């Protein structure tokens, strides 16, 4: 009797928590679905009955195509720069585990702790007078590199710290491999995972960066998030939604790749020798 009541109580608690989790899920997902629908309906207020259309998507494509290409370009350039700067830095930090190395790591992470507005104002105060630089997309790129570099360094560093780099390198050196050979044949292949994870992170963050970019951009160097803010402020809801939909299509695959990569690899099927191999599900 007592036990039954206890089980019922546990079951009730489970259902309560499940309901709560579903409510949180709805809070996060409902607006995403609504905005996707709004981007594809003729008139959002009239509802889906007004019909589906690709008109808004085309309108965004005509008016804001350049921001999409610019954002992709900046994200890729940012990736190249963070790879060139970040991977060697992570290597040096992994090989020198002393106080100085920890200080450098601390310092490198500062741009993430700084509000984007502060970093942008600092860049404008220092280099705003160089007109050619100020009005080029290179100015935005500098901000993005500052903001994303720590993620690349950390992600590569985490992998390098988990392997015995020193022994591997000494082994190679004893066989006569020079520094260049060791870096390209031992270090780089070993931190492939970290480089991949860091790269996805850098591209995703650069594509979505707004806090800094809003002050760094000029009318001729608008990025996708800047265009989004423009569209939200001045165009009808359907166009803003269609624009957001395009952004989702670009960012969600990156995010999914990142999550797949982050999941630790587990052996999915453990089959004892005497059990028949089950058929793969269609």
């Amino acid at each position, binding site marked *: 009797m007592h036990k039954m009541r206890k089980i019922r109580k546990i079951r009730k608690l489970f259902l309560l928590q499940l309901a709560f989790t579903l409510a949180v899920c709805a809070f996060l997902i409902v607006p995403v679905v609504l905005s996707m629908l709004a981007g594809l309906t003729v008139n959002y207020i009239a509802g889906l009955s007004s019909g589906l259309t690709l008109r808004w998507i085309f309108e965004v494509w005509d008016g804001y195509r350049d921001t999409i290409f610019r954002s992709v370009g900046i994200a890729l350039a940012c990736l190249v720069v963070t790879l060139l700067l970040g991977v060697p830095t992570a290597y040096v930090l992994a090989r020198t585990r002393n106080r100085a190395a920890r200080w450098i790591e601390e310092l490198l992470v500062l741009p993430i702790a700084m509000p984007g507005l502060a970093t942008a104002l600092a860049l404008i105060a220092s280099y705003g007078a160089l007109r050619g630089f100020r009005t080029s997309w290179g100015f935005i790129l500098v901000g993005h590199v500052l903001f994303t570099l720590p993620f690349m360094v950390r992600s590569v560093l985490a992998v390098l710290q988990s392997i015995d780099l020193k022994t591997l390198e000494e082994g190679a050196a004893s066989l006569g491999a020079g520094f260049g050979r060791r870096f390209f044949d031992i270090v780089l292949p070993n931190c492939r995972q970290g480089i991949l994870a860091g790269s996805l992170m850098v591209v*995703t963050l650069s594509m979505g960066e707004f806090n800094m970019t809003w002050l760094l951009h000029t009318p001729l160097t608008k990025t996708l998030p800047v265009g989004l803010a423009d569209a939200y402020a001045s165009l009808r809801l359907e166009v803003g939604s269609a624009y957001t939909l395009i952004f989702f299509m670009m960012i*969600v695959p990156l995010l999914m790749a990142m999550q797949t990569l982050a999941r630790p690899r587990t052996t999915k099927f453990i089959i004892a020798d005497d059990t028949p191999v089950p058929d793969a599900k269609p």
Partner: protein
Amino acid sequence: MYLLILPTALFFGAFFVLPMARLFMVGGSGSMGWGAYAAILTDKNYFNALLATLGIATATTALTLLISGITGVFLQRHKFPGNAALVAMLTLPLAFPGVVIGFMVIMLAGRQGLIGQVTEWATGERVVFAYSMFGLFMGYVYFSIPRTILTVMAATEKLDPRLEEAARSLGAPPWRVVVDVIVPALKPALISAGAICFATAVGAFGTAFTLATRINVLPMVIYTEFTMSANIAMAAALSFTLGAITWLVLALARNAAGSSVAAAG
């Protein structure tokens, strides 16, 4: 080998260390001199904005920790069919920038939003709060939930379920298990996740920008000083102070939690 770090050092020195030093100097170069740095406490408008910013950040942190704590522990402890799908949905907004979060709030609580439509249908009156402080608060909570849930889930995974069972078998009611076993064990994770919530809510600009220019939080004030009143010295002083606050919160949390803490977004 140390030469390899030189390009990063040059880049970082030229584009971060020097500009930050310059920002600090600019902050003291206006009509108020170095007093600009004190204005955040002495000027009523700035001080109110500071209070509003800290208030909204505190509220965001508290509510986000509560929501993500319950959901995160639940999803990690109970593996039922559909669990993975729920986790995927809850972490989907992870990469949304502040502007998009602002738009999500508008979809929910804006003039043409869902809440407005439902309340109009139910009561005849349209409830719209996206463009107020409460809308901003909702946006910050929306933004912080995904990353906090991930942190809580990771920490719960390391928590030994036998501890909870032991407490239960000794007759502890569920709330005692939560207060005496789960919360203390998750404390480092909650501190570091909370600090990130707080720091992001203090420094975020995109969401407030999308929702309205009338919301008086510090990032909006800085932006208005810079663009409308062209008071660059004041904008510099305020943003430098804002940066110092976020840095301090993250550093304190790192000391308390003992793990690496960094804000994002």
